[in-house]
């Protein structure tokens, strides 16, 4: 990487380039995070005391969260379930759509843009739009009535509300899988495919034996990126269900938000956040081991 003619002193001078960005990140991001980390070991709450007057609890908040806080543990489980369901559906739909786009047809460019458009819609707008679609007198129920299913109350029933969140999320982000998988499919070398076809492989065999292995790193990248986002999911759910009914659709982010900004338990909320961060870092790290060289080496 470094075998250029730039010598060592140039390298040192060049370090200056990264300083402004580092300073901004340090002041604006790292400092608050360190404050929050300290806070997560205390019982601080803005309604009770100043930060210095809070008593130090050590790991008590973390212990409480991991052992006794059922609402937190349920939110974690629910977010994981949401992630598994949404990502599987997005992968299947995205792959199906990408395969269609390997064919050639009229209006392909236009349709490509059209299929990407959901990704460009603001999450709050997606939440608001699907909230309208799932109203009891909304278009979804009108269509369901055509096949004899009447008066579905999407936001009053726990499983239906969860389903509404899944539908919303799948609509919003299937295009990302489509985009990533299509660029992956287009990059699969043609010669092995031709060879396999000449040797008499069936389309199914060509896909599983030739295309799929070449596509694997791309699939992992897509899953990692989406998993990171789905763990944080907030805007759509907040506008769609506010976590309800009860806590049927309360994800990790919604729980932390309610802790911090409705109940003002900032210290406890910070502890929950650091647990989530630790968990997602571990998960992403494990998932990315097979593809990290690809991500690191930007030369492609």
């Amino acid at each position, binding site marked *: 990487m470094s075998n250029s003619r*730039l010598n060592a002193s140039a390298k040192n001078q060049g370090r200056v380039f990264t300083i402004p960005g580092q300073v901004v990140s340090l002041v604006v991001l790292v400092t608050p995070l360190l404050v929050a980390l300290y*806070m997560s070991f205390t019982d601080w709450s803005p309604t009770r005391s100043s930060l210095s007057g809070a008593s130090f609890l050590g790991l008590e908040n973390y212990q409480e969260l991991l052992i006794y806080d059922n609402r937190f543990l349920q939110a974690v489980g629910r977010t994981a379930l949401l992630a598994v369901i949404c990502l599987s559906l997005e992968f299947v739909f995205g792959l199906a759509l990408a395969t269609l786009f390997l*064919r*050639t047809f009229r209006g392909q460019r236009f349709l490509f843009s059209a299929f990407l458009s959901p*990704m460009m819609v603001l999450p709050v707008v997606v939440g608001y739009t699907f909230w309208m679609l799932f109203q009891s007198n909304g278009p979804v129920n009108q269509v369901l009535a055509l096949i004899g299913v009447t008066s579905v109350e999407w936001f009053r029933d726990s499983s239906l509300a969860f389903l509404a969140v899944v539908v919303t999320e799948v609509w919003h982000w299937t295009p990302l899988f489509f*985009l990533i998988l299509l660029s992956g499919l287009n990059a699969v070398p043609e010669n092995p495919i031709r060879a396999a076809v000449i040797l008499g492989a069936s389309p199914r065999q060509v896909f599983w034996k030739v295309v799929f292995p070449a596509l694997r790193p791309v699939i992992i990248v897509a899953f990692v990126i989406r998993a990171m986002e789905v763990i944080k999911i907030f*805007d759509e759910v907040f506008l769609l269900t506010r976590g309800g009914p009860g806590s049927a659709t309360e994800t990790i982010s919604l729980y932390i938000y309610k802790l911090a900004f409705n109940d003002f338990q900032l210290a406890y909320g910070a502890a929950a956040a650091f647990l989530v961060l630790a968990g997602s870092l571990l998960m992403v790290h494990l998932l990315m081991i097979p593809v990290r060289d690809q991500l690191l080496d930007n030369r492609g």
Partner: protein
Amino acid sequence: MLNRPLSLWQIPLLLVALALVLFPIFWLVMTAIKPPIDWNASPAIWIPSEPTLINFRTLFDPAAIRAYGVGGVSQAATKAVVGSIVASVSATFLAVALGLVSAIGLSRYSRTNWSTPLVILSGRMFPPAAIAVPFVIIFSLTSLMDTYPGLVAIYTAVTLPFSTWMLKSFVDDLPREMEEAAMLDGKSRIMAHLTVTVPLIKGGLFSTTMLVFILNWSEYMFAQVLSNTELATIPVQLAKYVTATAGTLYGVQAALAVLAMIPLILGGFFIQGHLARGLTFGAIKK
């Protein structure tokens, strides 16, 4: 890969998929042009018989809707629109400018190891609700709550890792020899980068700017927890419908949503070629 036309059974499949993808957007746009009487009609009205622009006018002149017998409960969106533009544009400018400098530094003068992308990615993994907690505390101590500088600072810091990493992937694509030649010609290091590197990554710079803008423009939670009376952005204004006591102004909200969406759909269209790279942090090139 293998260029073949669609099979017969694939055509209806594609059309159904297209309908499903476009329907929510269609519904939103239709709601935005419905007169109040159609907003929440039972059964729902798909295409208004008398389309109107009253919802868009009401955004900037809340009294306009009174002509339709609605009690004028809406709040003008002018402030939110201006606020969104101010916050997104300044934060995007700062994040891209700082990111460009860092990207050149990282690409040309540093060794990046495996921890670099992980550090950058971890910034994107932390739930915003959690980052918001320390911000609220620090900002109340420094009286940055409910101010644009405060919001711009957060947006800049949150999108900086993203813009740095994306721009780095474009700088990495350039051969170093071009900059080195300019330096041998007697140009200073900074001038060499300004006159050689930057013009060569124009396209990448534009795409990065657009993507950072999309992130800032869409952001909801930070703006929500920081804003009180001074600060307003479009997503915050949009979310207010949930708490509106006087009933929901479907059409007016939809009009605001459509306005918010237009720049992103257009922008997304222009940068389609770089979308995969941007959204995968450079892991996928095309």
